[in-house]
C-alpha cells in the first residue's frame, strides 16, 4: 500500500520535472550505452579472433623454434625437412604433418605484378589447415618430391594478376622464376591480421631451391585427438631438442594461442569498460545531485506527509524509488541505445561488435545499483527531516 504510493509519487515527481529528469537520465544513458557498446566491441573482437584461430583447422599444434611470447624476436630456424620427417615418425602419420618456409616475393604475370607471400609447403597442407580450392588442384607428393615449379594462388593474387583471364595453366614468375598455376584457393579473408588470400603456395622443395636454403620456418601437426595434444607437443619438442640441442623449441596449441590473445583482449575490454564505467559514475553523481535538489524543493511536502503519519522510512523509500527510477529508465534507454549503436557499428564498419546477455544484465544491474547508491543519501536526508522545520520551509 505504502509502496504503491511511493511508486506513484516517484513517477509523478519525474513527470512534473520532465526536462530535468530527462537531462539527469541522459548522464546514465550515456554511461550505460557506452558500457554496452564498448563491451560489445571487445566481445566481438574476441569472438572474431577466436573464429580465425579455430578457422586454421582443429587440433592444431604449431612447432616453431624459439619461445612464443609477446615481444620476442623471431629466431632463425635450424629446422629442415629431415626434422619434419622426424616429427612425422613421432606423430606416426606423415599426412598429419605440414611445414612452411615463407618469404615475401614479387609475383609477375605479363605486365602485372603483385608483392605477395610465397609459402613453400608440403602436399599435406590442406589436410592440416582448413583450406579449400576454388579451381584446379592442389600440390601433390610428386610435385614436392620433384621440386616441380607449380603454384596455387590465393584469391587476391589471382584477381590481381589475372583480372580477366583464367589463371589455370598460366605462367607466373615468382622472384623471377617461372611457375605454372595449377590451382586457385577459395577466398578466406583476414586471419589474425594476415590477408590469407594474398599468398602463393609452391612445393617446399621448389621454394628452398628458389631461396637457396634448406630450412623450414615451422612445422604444423594435426593431432589425432584433442586430449593428448599437449603430450604430443612435449614429445615433438623433446625430439627436436635432441636433434638441435642448442635451440629452444615451442609447441603451441590453438587453445594456448587463444589463451594469450584472450588475455590481451580481455584486458583491452576491461579498460574500455572501465572508461565507460567512469561516465556511468558521473551520471550517478548527477542523479545524486538532482535528488538533493528534489528533496529541498519538496521539503514542505515531506513535512506535511510526516504530519499526517508518514514514517521516516516511507519518505526515504519514496525518494530512493525516484532515484532508482531515474537510473533504471536511463539504464534501459542506454541499453537500447548501446545495442543499437553496436549493431550499427558491426554492420557499417570493419569493427566487430557482439551483444552478450551478461553485458546487458550487468549494465542494467549497475544502473539500478547506481540509483540506490546515489539515491540513498538524499533519501535518508529526506526521511530524517524534522517535520516542524520541514513544514516551515519555503
Amino acid at each position: 500500500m505504502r509502496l504503491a504510493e511511493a511508486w506513484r509519487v516517484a513517477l509523478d515527481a519525474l513527470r512534473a520535472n520532465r526536462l530535468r529528469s530527462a537531462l539527469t537520465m541522459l548522464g546514465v544513458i550515456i554511461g550505460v550505452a557506452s558500457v554496452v557498446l564498448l563491451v560489445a566491441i571487445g566481445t566481438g573482437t574476441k569472438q572474431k579472433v577466436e573464429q580465425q584461430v579455430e578457422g586454421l583447422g582443429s587440433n592444431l599444434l604449431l612447432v616453431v623454434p624459439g619461445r612464443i611470447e609477446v615481444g620476442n624476436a623471431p629466431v632463425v630456424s635450424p629446422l629442415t625437412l629431415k626434422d619434419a620427417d622426424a616429427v612425422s615418425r613421432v606423430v606416426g602419420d606423415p599426412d598429419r604433418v605440414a611445414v612452411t618456409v615463407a618469404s615475401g616475393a614479387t609475383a609477375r604475370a605479363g605486365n602485372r605484378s603483385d608483392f605477395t607471400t610465397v609459402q613453400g609447403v608440403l602436399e599435406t597442407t590442406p589436410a592440416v589447415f582448413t583450406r579449400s580450392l576454388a579451381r584446379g588442384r592442389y600440390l601433390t607428393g610428386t610435385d614436392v618430391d620433384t621440386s616441380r615449379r607449380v603454384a596455387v594462388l590465393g584469391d587476391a593474387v589471382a584477381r590481381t594478376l589475372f583480372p580477366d583471364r583464367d589463371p589455370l595453366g598460366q605462367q607466373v614468375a615468382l622472384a623471377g622464376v617461372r611457375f605454372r598455376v595449377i590451382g586457385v584457393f577459395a577466398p578466406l579473408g583476414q586471419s589474425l591480421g594476415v590477408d590469407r588470400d594474398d599468398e602463393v603456395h609452391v612445393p617446399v622443395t621448389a621454394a628452398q631451391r628458389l631461396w637457396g636454403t634448406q630450412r623450414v620456418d615451422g612445422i604444423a601437426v594435426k593431432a589425432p585427438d584433442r586430449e593428448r595434444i599437449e603430450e604430443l607437443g612435449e614429445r615433438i619438442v623433446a625430439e627436436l631438442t635432441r636433434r638441435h640441442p642448442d635451440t629452444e623449441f615451442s609447441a603451441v596449441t590453438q587453445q594456448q594461442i587463444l589463451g594469450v590473445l584472450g588475455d590481451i583482449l580481455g584486458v583491452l575490454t576491461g579498460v574500455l569498460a572501465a572508461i565507460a564505467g567512469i561516465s556511468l559514475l558521473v551520471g550517478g553523481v548527477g542523479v545524486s545531485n538532482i535528488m538533493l535538489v528534489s528533496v529541498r524543493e519538496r521539503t514542505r511536502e515531506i513535512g506535511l506527509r510526516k504530519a499526517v503519519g508518514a514514517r521516516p522510512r516511507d519518505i526515504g523509500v519514496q525518494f530512493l524509488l525516484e532515484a532508482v527510477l531515474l537510473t533504471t529508465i536511463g539504464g534501459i534507454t542506454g541499453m537500447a541505445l548501446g545495442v543499437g549503436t553496436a549493431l550499427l557499428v558491426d554492420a557499417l564498419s570493419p569493427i566487430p561488435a557482439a551483444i552478450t546477455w551478461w553485458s546487458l544484465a550487468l549494465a542494467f544491474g549497475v544502473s539500478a545499483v547506481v540509483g540506490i547508491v546515489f539515491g540513498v543519501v538524499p533519501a535518508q536526508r529526506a526521511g530524517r527531516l524534522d517535520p516542524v522545520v520541514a513544514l516551515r520551509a519555503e
Partner: protein
Amino acid sequence: MTGAPPAIEAVDVSRTYQLDGVSVEALRGVSLLVQPGDYVALVGPSGSGKSTLMHLLGGLDRPTGGRLVIGGRDVNALAPPEMATLRNETIGFVFQAFHLLPRTSAVENVALPLVYRGVPARQRRTRAAAMLGRVGLGHRLDHRPNQMSGGEQQRVAIARALVTEPTVLLADEPTGNLDSVTGAAVLELLEQLNVESGVALVLVTHDQEVAARAQRRITMRDGVVVADSDNRHDRPPSVDHGRPATLVPAPSAEPRSASGSGPGHPSGGSGGAAGATGRLPREVDQGRPGVERPGGTA
C-alpha cells in the same frame, strides 16, 4: 465525562532550542489537559511559544523537559516511526497555508493520511469522498488545489485532518490566509465538526474574536501559560449563531477589551490561578458564569 482519559496531557513541559550554541527557551513549564470534545483557543503574541506548544501537542516535536502524553502514550518513550503512527491515528492538523499537495486531486489529498495507515485504495477513496461531502465539497472531488478558492482549499485540508477520525484537531491560524467572510465560514465548519464528531479542537490564533468563541482560552506569553479561562457558558449556541458579532452575550466593549488581552497581563486572576496546571474546564466553569472574560481582560 471526567472519567474519560484526557486526549492530551502536558505536565510541566518545556522545550529548549539550540540556536548557534545559544539556548532559547521557547516553553518553560507548561501544564494543561485537553479533554475529548474540548474547544480550546491558544492565544498569545508571536514568540509566546504557542506554535511550539502546538507542535508538541501534535506530536511533531518532543519536549526537552516534562511529561507529554498524547492519546495515552508518553511521547518521550516513542521512536520517530511510532510518533508518525501516533500522529496518524490521534491528531489532525489544519495549517494556515493549507499544505495541500499540488497536482493532486482533492480526494487524493484527503486520502493521504489513509495511505500511511495502510487502508486499501478503494476504501481510501470512499472515505475521503464522504469526508469531502461533510465539509461541503462533494462536488469538487477531482479538483486540484490550484482550481479551488482559498476557502475550499482549507476545507479540503480540514477533511484531510478528520478523515482518520482523530481525537484532536490542531488548527494553526486556520483562517489566517482567508478573508473574513470565508474565514468565518471555515471557523463555523470547524466548530460544527467539533460538536458533531466530538473531536477536540485546539485553535491557535492571534485573533481575539476567534478566540472568544472557544469554550476555553489559553493565553501564552514568554513560554508560559498566563491565563487559562473558560467561556463555556457561550458554548451551546455557538453553532447556530456563532458569528463574530454575536460571539459573546456580553457588554459591547468586548472586542476592544479582547484585543487588549493579547499581550498578556498577569491580572486574569481566575485563569492565572488555576490555569497553569491541567485543570478540567468543565468542572470549573459552572462556578463563575460570565466572570471569565471580563476578569481576563480587565
